[in-house]
């Protein structure tokens, strides 16, 4: 409902209404102007402008930019569509579609489709997962799926992301995080991790951009879990976060000591583990090149330990709720540079262009 997905590309936002059923679901492209362009007093230059939109069949469950012009959209009907944004005349058109990429038992039945819940791209490859527990590997411009793993999971797969170029991570509704190696022909995950205690469904997953063994997941109970996939089968830390489903979790792509989560409870949290200045030993405060060198290293060290640290009291983690008057669910967020975008069930998108100001 409301605004279900946002995805940021360097210049545009793609937003979808993601409203239910037969009427009026749309994919919209908005322009927020140059990201680097700031007014005299640092204020943003006006509201996002709607560039173009296009009708979409079914709810938009997930979407992602494949490249500067194409967006892959996952639908509740089970279709996966690539839309192309024509920048010369500002239109959107459906470029390619895989019909009923996800389906329950009888694909040909009129309601045989199963919602496609997650999509991840690494041009030209596209991986999708769905409520049918199926994993699909597509290639843009190739008609048939490159690979399909039927019944990969006995429960619903809620999200997927790339771990390495040939490995993906999935999370499901019985609290499991699985690694799949797409090079291998067998239809089994190469590793299974699971939550301790109650098998609360996991809704989102993201991998640390630099340290590939650090993975974050969000659960139905609003809990943020950090995993070290080099060791063990259980999460390294569990952080009590939101009061309801955590819909999305994202590490900042260029500042990974910052993490963002959004939830059904209407809040969006900014998790900041960057070490505060006062924590550095005093001798490092003297100017010069050596300080820079040291601090860079120190920060990296503490980042690693901060995310994987078990002791929240030792963590110098700052957590801020970025939404002052929360009402309805924040369904989706995305970040690029200093720009944060999120969408809510009140059919609104918000753009914050000065995240670190």
């Amino acid at each position: 409902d409301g605004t279900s997905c946002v995805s940021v590309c360097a210049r545009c936002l793609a937003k979808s209404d993601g409203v239910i059923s037969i009427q009026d679901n749309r994919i919209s492209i908005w322009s927020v102007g140059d990201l680097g362009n700031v007014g005299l007093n640092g204020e943003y230059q006006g509201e996002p402008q709607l560039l173009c939109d296009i009708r979409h069949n079914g709810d938009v469950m997930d979407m992602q930019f494949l490249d500067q012009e194409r967006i892959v959209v996952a639908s509740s009907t089970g279709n996966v569509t690539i839309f192309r944004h024509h920048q010369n005349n500002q239109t959107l058109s459906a470029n390619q579609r895989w019909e009923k990429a996800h389906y329950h038992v009888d694909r040909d039945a009129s309601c045989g489709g199963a919602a496609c819940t997650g999509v991840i791209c690494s041009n030209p490859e596209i991986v999708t997962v769905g409520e049918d527990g199926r994993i699909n590997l597509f290639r843009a411009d190739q008609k048939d799926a490159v690979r399909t793993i039927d019944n990969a999971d006995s429960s619903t797969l809620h999200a997927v992301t790339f771990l390495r170029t040939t490995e993906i991570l999935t999370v499901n509704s019985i609290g499991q995080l699985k690694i799949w190696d797409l090079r291998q022909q067998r239809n089994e995950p190469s590793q299974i991790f699971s939550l301790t205690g109650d098998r609360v469904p996991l809704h989102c997953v993201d991998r640390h951009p630099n340290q590939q063994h650090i993975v974050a997941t969000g659960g139905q109970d609003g809990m943020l879990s950090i995993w070290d996939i080099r060791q063990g089968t259980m999460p390294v830390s569990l952080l009590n976060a939101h009061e309801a489903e955590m819909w999305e979790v994202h590490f900042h792509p260029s500042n990974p000591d910052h993490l963002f989560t959004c939830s059904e409870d209407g809040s969006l949290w900014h998790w900041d583990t960057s070490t505060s200045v006062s924590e550095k030993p005093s001798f490092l405060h003297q100017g010069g090149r050596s300080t820079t060198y040291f601090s860079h290293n120190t920060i990296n060290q503490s980042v690693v330990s901060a995310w994987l640290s078990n002791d929240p009291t030792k963590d110098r983690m700052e957590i801020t709720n970025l939404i002052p008057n929360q009402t309805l669910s924040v369904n989706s967020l995305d970040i690029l540079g200093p720009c944060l975008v999120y969408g809510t069930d009140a059919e609104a998108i918000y753009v914050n262009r000065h995240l670190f100001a």
Partner: protein
Amino acid sequence: MFPCPVLFLYSRFIRNTMYLDLAEHLGLIFHLLLKKPDSSCVFVVRKDQDIYIQTLRKLFNESHGIFIGLQRSEEEFAGKSRKTQLVQVSKNYRSVIRACMEDMHQAAVSARDPALHSQYSTQVSILSAMELIWNLCEILFVEAAVAGPLLLRLLDWVRLHVCDVDNMVREVLSSENPSKHELFWNLGNTQTLTEMELKWQHWHEECQRYLQDGTFASNSHMESICKILLGDENAILEKKELMTTWYHFLVTRLLYSHPTVKPMELRFYAQSSMDLFLGGESSPEPLDTILMAAFEFELHQVIKECSIALSNWWFVAHLTDLLDHCKLLQSHNLYFGSNMREFLLLEYASGLFSHYSLWQLGVDYFDHCPEYGRVYLELHIERIPLNTEQKALKVLRICEQRQMHEQVRSICKIMAMKALRNNRLGSALSWSIRAKDAAFATLISDRFLKDYCEKGCFSDLDLIDNLGPSMLLSDRLTFLGKYREFHRLYGEKRFSEAAKLLLMLMTAHIAPCSFWMTLLTDALPLLEQKEVIFSAEQTYELMRCLEDLTAGKSDKQKFQDDDVETMKVEMLRLALARNLARVIVKEGTLEGS
């Protein structure tokens, strides 16, 4: 007082016609509001979704935020600060209406189809009318402007809504005695009402003298202006074509004749203004009736007329709620129990629920209806179509937050059944865990066990191997988990542990009786091992289980048992006997004990 069975039934009609949602009604019946005297009374019913959906959804969404803010706002502020707060809320509502007007206007401008263009334009005028009414209510009721500021507000009100600028006012400002006029305009807080009245009187007399002296005799234009300034009704009426409406006339008249008009006096001037302006040529339109009711401070009448004219629950619901917060409505109970504010909010919110995406807003409105809100919510929420799991989760979260346990169970059951039918056993289990539904968990476990018996192996091992504490949800589920564990232990060649587990499953009655035969058959390979696994004690237990099982069967059943069954039992007896023999010997010898 309040409509009326007709309206009540009509609202039921609206709710029941699924395809005629709220937004469409805004267009449908709005024609009533702007009815021209000579138009026909037949209205064409159309489903014009595109026109209404986009911009009006913005209206619904944004006003929802304002509504919630108002409900949550501090009641502790008393007197002036509370009033300021309420006026701000009213202004916020109006700015949302104006924003929608803007969008609708843009849509009208960019519409290429002339029919579409005219429809958009109609919508703009409807929204404009709504803002006009709301603005007046804000001045008279929310702000409750007193004599002095009252006229200023009314002037702003008219200016805002009338395209033609009051030329006469402009001319006044540029006339001969600017200083005197500035005095007149300075109706700020610095002066008391009496001071102002005195000043105005003085000025008025001066103007009168100018007129009588014939100062303007040479210029008829100036003379008529002077007459207007003196509040000469006929002079003002002569300029009728410059004023588009009777309320424009009213305010102009008051400006020049009674600028310190008191709120309670408005009704008289309003009535006479309307009579004079319309002059018996045309009858009042619905909009006129509403505005008149406002000038007469008949709050309930205003709401009633708006409800009839607009059939737009949005407007009356939000306005009434605001007026209720201003403590202006007596808690007048309607014959079916709830008060007017609640009735309107319930109707509005119910309309939202029949709308495919705005139902989430409706939830919050129901929350703030203390008497019937919960009941309405319970009924509506079960009827939301759950086409994706994500939507079901949202609905569930709403139910759980309000302790609507019945609805939680019902929704989880629906989702679990759907999953089961699609062979998604893991999903089905996940829903049963959420609802803590032991019975359903048992059902799912039976499915797994059935699959095992048929195929000889477990499907969905990733699920069964990973049940965790949810295993305890139902006995059958526990058995499933433990049984799988047995197989795992066997696979890892940890035979004595496997044996112990297997026996425990029967003796502790974790396994259902129907499964005992399978379990005993599973014991066979353990009995046949080169090494003795089961102790004597354990063997006796196994034998007892077997005997219990066979004794439990009636003679008839034994007769019906096919050869395979009988052979199985025989084999078991033999294996058990052999094991017993070996183990007695083993335990009897010195090394074995």
